């Protein structure tokens, strides 16, 4: 069973990205972005499945 993602996990990843964006290390910045995107998407999916999120706003380039 997948580990439950919490708001604190998202907050932590956002803080890590904010720190990474202050620096000039492009790979660290990209890694922080990938980690945040992963945890944020997992949290949003979890919330959507639980019926706690009603928004679903995405533009796909195929549209």
């Amino acid at each position: 069973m997948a580990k439950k993602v919490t708001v604190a996990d998202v907050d932590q990843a956002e803080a890590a990205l904010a720190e990474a964006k202050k620096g000039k290390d492009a790979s660290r910045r990209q890694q922080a972005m990938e980690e945040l995107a992963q945890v944020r998407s997992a949290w949003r999916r979890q919330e959507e499945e639980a019926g706690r999120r009603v928004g679903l706003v995405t533009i796909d380039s195929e549209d």
Partner: protein
Amino acid sequence: MAWSASGFFRQTMADNLNNIIVLNLDLETHKVALFGNSVTPDYDAAASAAKYGTGGTWTTANEVTGTGYTAGGALLTSTTVTTPSAGIVMWDAADTAWSSATISGIYGCLIYADAMTTPVADQGILAVYFGGTSYAVTAGTFTIQWSANGIYRNTP
């Protein structure tokens, strides 16, 4: 006419690919502005018309007003540009919220490059149609909950 679809402004994309503009989507200076149902998005518009403010459809006259909302909108924060799976490039950000707000008649939003000044200031990037519902909030928080799949994704 009114809203009927979301979209990416094609001239913005073309200008970026042609190096006429530098559109860095991981900046945290882009803004989200809320609009009513008077706008008729034209995703094929010239760059000068696909912008926030005078010159196109995205004018303050068409923007929502209300307590807790400042014209021009809110910053898009914690922005990420990532490659979550094969062939996918995803642009995402933290959910965008207006607290202690009383706003009505919200039909969609414009995301624009607030820090861009040339060749067109406040160049529109994309607009999101909220599906035809007139959203409102009274003395509460209005939140745009971006999708788990991000704000925008480029797929093969």
